[in-house]
């Protein structure tokens, strides 16, 4: 999604007027993610707006040629605002039979298949469970088919460099990329520079890859192909001038957390435990030590959050990160952070569940867990990012709320946001207002109260080591003001009320309308990574004259104060979610609105068309 596209509301734009969806699919070992990443960069340099969707297996090295070992990368790029990775691909590049089989059904009717026929041998066809060769048996007649022996063409191209057969074939992805660059009239030079830099120590390998790239490009240019292969130029999207880079959600969270800690003037402590798809945040942060970041790979999820709480107690900004199963393990410790009223940021990169579920696939099914998933009355703010770029802003917001209200905060992203890349208009940090933390260093007038409160109901933050303010905290119910152990009925009632009032009172910006009007026939209410398909679907339906508006909620808990009134100003409300209706339940509970669910739990993002049909259905 392009946050920087001019007129992002895009009321007047023709929907997806000049956008192309390409999916590269191959074996896990074929380098499809890398191919996609480099094609993405070339799209950026061509000035296109774009969105991507990497879709790869959970297995690290699945057996070659198998259906479950297929790795795919989809990119949607165009000359107008792009909000999603696209519904149906226009072009499918299939590097083997398994890649064709698992991806062809998604291809647009009449779309183009480019298949490496060199890989369509009996062995691979059997692995992909094809009875006959689909390139020969006419079963692909709905689509345009371009059979190329990419394997052989690559071997020929890299012959002069003396690579072994296996190494030579690993250049196939560059041959394919070369062809794709020709198809979309792209400059090869940035990619050649990148290859030379990447293989600086292995000049033969660099030269071979460049040769493969050039050969693929030359093939497109010179082959006299009657039929499907045509060059297509997608013009630049009108974006705001400025400095851009590509950004994944994991990078965005890491950078946003660093920015948040700096705005709070605090060192950051990050306790993590490896889990897909959250590990990338740990990886990014562990390289950023000069920003006063300490990272700790703990022995388990519980130790990861507990160490972060320990660090917050010591005066750092404690942060932990995981995905659903790990978040479940952290639940008890979140309760302790709530009870001891210490700042903490918990990032949940949601994935398909329950249990181990679908580790590499996306889902939004941890909303209940985030809002309600702890023992006792344990209120905790929850913020949900809508896109990679938005995750940067949300991470800063999570840090701000945590330190200003002395509370743990959960930041929700998902597997899609974590892995997907989008162009990011690099923000000017001086534009962000800082929120420096004031530690209590001496007893105020009237004496030191560890559980005394300011106007936000936040208690003071005292670093151990501070003379004169010695106190003990813990998970047992606290006495008002003193923080001593207290089991008295009236005290527990009062403390429960205070904890609730503190979180309820967190200042959250009023809810706006992303697209459309305040009030009307239908509101489509979303949260998190469904932003793209909802936005495009609402844009298209509005272009057709439908009275439909898009509302996207960032502050899941507490909800914006005006949200109830806003929802009641529409005749109907539908809530598309990649779960079985979790936000829908919260909205019904909080506002008694008849919000209707639109659900998808396939591990894949919504397509625009799916949301469009839901809108049509609701407006019937």
């Amino acid at each position, binding site marked *: 999604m392009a946050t*920087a596209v001019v007129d992002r509301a895009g009321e007047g734009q023709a929907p997806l007027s000049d956008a192309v969806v390409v999916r590269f699919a191959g074996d896990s070992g074929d380098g499809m993610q890398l191919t996609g990443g480099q094609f993405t960069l070339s799209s950026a340099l061509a000035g296109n707006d774009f969105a991507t969707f990497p879709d790869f297996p959970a297995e690290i090295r699945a057996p070659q040629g198998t259906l479950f070992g297929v790795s795919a990368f989809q990119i949607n790029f165009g000359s107008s605002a792009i909000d999603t990775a696209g519904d149906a691909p226009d072009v499918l590049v299939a590097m083997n039979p398994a890649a064709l089989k698992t991806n062809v059904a998604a291809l647009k009717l009449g779309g183009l298949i480019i298949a490496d026929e060199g890989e369509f041998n009996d062995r691979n066809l059997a692995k992909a469970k094809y009875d006959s060769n689909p390139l020969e048996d006419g079963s692909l007649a709905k689509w345009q088919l371009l059979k190329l022996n990419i394997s052989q063409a690559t071997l020929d191209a890299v012959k002069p460099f003396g690579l072994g057969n296996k190494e030579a074939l690993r250049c196939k992805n560059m041959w394919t990329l070369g062809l794709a660059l020709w198809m979309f009239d792209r400059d090869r030079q940035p990619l050649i520079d990148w290859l030379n830099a990447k293989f600086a120590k292995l000049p033969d390998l660099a030269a071979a890859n460049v040769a493969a790239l050039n050969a693929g490009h030359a093939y497109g240019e010179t082959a006299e192909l009657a039929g499907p292969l045509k060059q297509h130029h997608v013009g630049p999207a009108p974006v705001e001038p400025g400095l*851009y880079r590509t950004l994944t959600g994991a990078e965005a969270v890491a950078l946003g957390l660093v920015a948040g800690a700096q705005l709070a003037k605090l060192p950051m402590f990050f306790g993590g435990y490896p889990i897909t798809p959250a590990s990338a945040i740990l990886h990014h942060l562990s390289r950023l*030590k*000069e920003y006063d970041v300490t990272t700790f790979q703990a022995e388990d999820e519980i*130790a990861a959050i*507990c160490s972060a709480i320990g660090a917050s107690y010591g*005066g750092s900004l404690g942060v932990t990160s995981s995905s659903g199963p790990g978040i479940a393990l952290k639940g008890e410790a979140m309760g302790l952070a709530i009870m001891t009223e210490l700042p903490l940021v918990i990032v949940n990169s949601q994935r398909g569940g329950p249990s181990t579920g679908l580790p590499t696939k996306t889902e939004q099914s941890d909303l209940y867990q985030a809002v309600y998933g702890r023992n006792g009355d344990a209120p905790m703010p929850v913020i949900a990012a809508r896109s990679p770029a938005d995750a940067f802003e949300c991470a800063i917001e999570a840090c701000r709320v945590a330190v200003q209200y002395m509370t743990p905060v959960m930041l929700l992203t998902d597997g899609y946001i974590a892995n997907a890349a989008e162009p990011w208009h690099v923000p000017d940090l001086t534009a962000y207002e800082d929120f420096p933390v004031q530690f209590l260093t001496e007893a105020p007038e009237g004496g030191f109260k560890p559980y005394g409160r300011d106007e936000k109901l936040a208690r003071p933050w005292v670093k151990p080591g501070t003379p004169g303010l010695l106190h003990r905290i813990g998970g047992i119910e606290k006495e008002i003001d003193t923080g001593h152990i207290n089991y008295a009925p009236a005290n527990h009632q009062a403390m429960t009320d205070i904890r609730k009032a503190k979180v309820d009172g967190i200042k959250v910006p009023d809810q706006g309308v992303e697209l459309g009007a305040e009030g009307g026939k239908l509101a489509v209410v979303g949260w998190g990574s469904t932003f793209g398909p909802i936005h495009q679907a609402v844009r298209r339906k509005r272009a057709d004259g439908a009275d439909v508006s898009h509302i996207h909620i960032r502050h899941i808990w507490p909800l914006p104060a005006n949200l109830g009134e806003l929802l009641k100003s529409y005749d109907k409300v539908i809530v598309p979610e990649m779960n079985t209706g979790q936000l829908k339940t919260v909205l019904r509970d909080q506002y008694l609105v008849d919000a209707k669910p639109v659900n998808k739990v396939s591990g894949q993002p919504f397509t625009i068309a799916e949301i469009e049909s839901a809108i049509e259905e609701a407006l019937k």
Partner: protein
Amino acid sequence: MNEMTTVARTTTLKDWETDQEVRWCPGCGDYAILKAVQRTMPEIGTTPENTVFVSGIGCSSRFPYYMETYGFHTIHGRAPAFATGLKLANPDLDIWIVTGDGDGLSIGGNHTMHLIRRNLDCQIMLFNNEIYGLTKGQYSPTSRVGTTSPSTPFGSVDRPAQPCAFALGAGARFVARGFDVSKELPNVLKAAHAHKGAAFIEIFQNCIVYNKDVFQDFAAPKGAEDRQLWLQNGEPMLFAKGTKGIALDSGALELKVVDVVDGDWQAAGVIVHDVTNRSVAHMLVEMRFGEFPMALGVLYDDPRPTFEADVVRQNAAAREGKTADLQSLLKKGQTWTVKEGGPEL
């Protein structure tokens, strides 16, 4: 032990007592341990504000409320993890972990192991009473086979964990033992504090309600001479008023009890205790009481670089020569500039 950054000042036992009412059962061994700790603190030259007691859940874990220091009563089994984050956030703090046989070896066994292997500089006092007290008397991972309890009415069948052997196996560089009412306990605590790194102390503690007098066979004052082996670095391993000692059966590679005649322990082959000898430490923690006396005092003490010191060193090295310019970090990687005319590299 920790590097002092605050000015040392003289404190007395009173300075380490809180105004909180102590809520252990009358006669609980925890009272004696609390006193021993409060008595030790003024002698080790640290200050209350620089000291943090971190505990998990269980009877022993109420300890922080009674120490006039900073204190964090955390959740069941997780004290080592909190301590790790706290120490990394502020390596100058002097951290004491208070745990029990259930908290530290059952629900939190994993964290205890990793804290020890990483060698975080702190003291771990594991109060071992061989029973779950706070949950009303279930058998624990250190309960002896056959312990009858509400959850094992026909007697427990699983073999107990050996805390000191566990600690040593996890890579501990300091292992010591004491018991609640022992006069020697403050000396053991002082030695633990003087050790830079994770110092593991098993403290036998008498649960008078659910497991009364289970350590009396060696802890009772009467006949203690014959049943306690107090280890002293550089001294021969003698007990029973010098009439018995511990020697090495070099054929079987095992320890054995030998008689010492006329004080000639050399002739009897009694070993001189070397706290840095890891092989002997492994044998000492495995010594079966009954056949042998109970080994007490500092069993092993051989410091290695600490976790937090290595983290601090690596962080400093990684920061060397770099400026923390976040704006330039945001621009890292391949960027392009969009001008009115279109993008360029």
